[in-house]
């Protein structure tokens, strides 16, 4: 007997709802258990993971190559920072609800930028996107350096962040930490990013993305409007990069154009390639590895007195790519592993 669409719909709500509770529990645990330095690393993991997942949509799933994603991140970061210094939608005790709005505004402007960049360059087949995005990333950086209203080369100061929230339950005041609120915010965005891409991939829209990656000519012949599909993937990817930028801005409370250099774009590419092109869980794992690796190597610098961090970081990446040339996960997802041989052929 076949399941009804309605029951399937209800079943599909279970995972998101459980995930939200897990997010809150995890945020509370991290808030209470580790110090501020490690807490900040968790935020950076979220930011990098959102960047990686978004970029995977373009580089891994649709088979295009963007190497200027830091540009979209910068657009999102600066816009949401600027908006947050000018407008507050919610008054004092509820000000944390402002941040999703800032993030969406940053994401939307980044998505618009993605549309402007993607529309002309994705009509063509081949490496044009790489060249155009590379240029775009640099243009954004140079523009940010020279616009005085957002700090120019000095950087953008005084971006409001999350504040401690005091609630009194039965007369006893309870302090909800700023970090907890912020981390929930970041984790929820990560959850949204992951679920949106995960579900898209398993729909006809995701199959269209993959068909473009596999064979553009065949995809066209089978009725796929490849330009539209590529632009869609790219705009969505830019949106998430903008959101990642916004989360970053409200935690760092300070933005500098040099943060969004070419290296930042390369970081995102490393996450995608290291995790495995097209593997979302791979991108998550790689985001954790890439964020933590330089930090784990930090004590080494103190012992030896030489900064070997980047050398070892690079060597580890090279070794990993030799051992697993298709990335940590290949094109598989974590659930495929305990489903065993179901998908192996």
């Amino acid at each position: 007997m076949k399941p009804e669409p309605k029951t399937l719909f209800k079943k599909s709500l279970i995972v998101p709802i459980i995930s939200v509770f897990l997010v809150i529990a995890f945020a509370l645990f991290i808030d209470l258990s580790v110090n501020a330095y490690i807490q900040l690393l968790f935020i950076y993991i979220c930011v990098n993971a959102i960047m990686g997942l978004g970029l995977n949509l373009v580089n891994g799933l649709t088979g295009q190559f963007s190497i200027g994603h830091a540009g979209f991140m910068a657009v999102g970061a600066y816009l949401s920072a600027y908006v947050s210094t000018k407008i507050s939608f919610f008054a004092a005790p509820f000000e944390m609800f402002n941040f999703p709005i800032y993030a969406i505004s940053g994401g939307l402007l980044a998505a618009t930028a993605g549309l402007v960049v993607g529309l002309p360059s994705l009509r063509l087949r081949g490496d044009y996107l790489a060249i155009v995005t590379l240029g775009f990333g640099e243009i954004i950086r140079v523009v940010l350096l020279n616009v005085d209203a957002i700090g120019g080369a000095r950087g953008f100061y005084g971006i409001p962040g999350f504040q401690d929230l005091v609630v009194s339950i039965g007369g006893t005041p309870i302090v909800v930490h700023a970090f907890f609120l912020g981390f929930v915010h970041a984790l929820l965005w990560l959850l949204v990013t992951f679920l949106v891409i995960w579900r898209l991939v398993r729909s006809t829209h995701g199959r269209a993305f993959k068909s473009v990656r596999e064979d553009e000519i065949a995809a066209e012949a089978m009725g796929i409007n490849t330009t539209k599909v590529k632009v869609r993937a790219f705009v969505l990817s830019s949106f998430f990069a903008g959101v990642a930028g916004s989360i970053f801005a409200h935690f760092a409370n300070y933005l500098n154009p040099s943060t969004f250099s070419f290296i930042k774009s390369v970081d995102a590419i490393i996450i995608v390639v290291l995790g495995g092109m097209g593997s979302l869980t791979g991108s998550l794992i790689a985001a954790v590895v890439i964020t933590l690796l330089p930090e784990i190597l930090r004590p080494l610098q103190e012992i030896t007195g030489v900064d070997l961090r980047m050398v070892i970081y690079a060597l580890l990446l090279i070794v990993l790519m030799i051992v697993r040339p298709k990335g940590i996960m290949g094109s598989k997802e974590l659930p495929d592993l305990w489903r065993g041989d179901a998908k192996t052929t």
Partner: protein
Amino acid sequence: MPKLLEVQEITMQFGGLKAVDRFSMELSQGELVGLIGPNGAGKTTVFNMLTGVYTPTSGDVLFESSSIKGLKPYQISHLGLTRTFQNIRLFKDLSVLDNVLIACDQHIAYGMLASVLKTPFYFKEEMIYQEKALELLKIFRLEHKCQELASALPYGDQRKLEIIRALATDPKMILLDEPAAGMNHAETHDLMKTIVRIRDEFQLTVLLIEHDMKLVMGICERIFVLDHGVTIAVGDPGSIQTNTKVIEAYLGVDES
């Protein structure tokens, strides 16, 4: 009876080379027509012009009485003219089922938001098209391999999957580019019968390029012969087999 496809003197010029020179043909609904010729005669170029991969340098192509010249391949596919490829172009790293489902994309109605929210409509549509895809796979008895990667299929099955994928677009007319290439006798024979069967079952019009003369002569009602981009003969299989120009094109002219 109106013609389904009218090709009016299309020419394809690549620099100084005329790959196809003033090629014309008219196909009625339900016909099964062959396009043959020696290697390099321009057969695949004709297919590429009909499906929008190339835009003809001159001439016009009418599909159901409206011009499709200059349309993008996906637009032509939406109108109901689809094809298979000579050098197999499957989505290799995707499952057999996904290959077929991608061709259904143009008919699947749910939007991106519906697929993210997994609305009941999303599930309903997915079920309908999964079932349809499996139904199509049964034509060539590939349904039990639906979860395998397309690249893992044997060569003959890959050719068959290409035909199934093309059928999934719900075409009115299908262009088959060497469907029997690389198949053995038994497989070719099987394929012949299946082509005729799907033509009848789906009320298709079929135009096929093929080097296997047994297949072409066995099932085609009319045959066009191309040589060096020029149409040298048109007719039923019997007349083509005895046509001196065709024999010369294939075997060369006796110089003595």
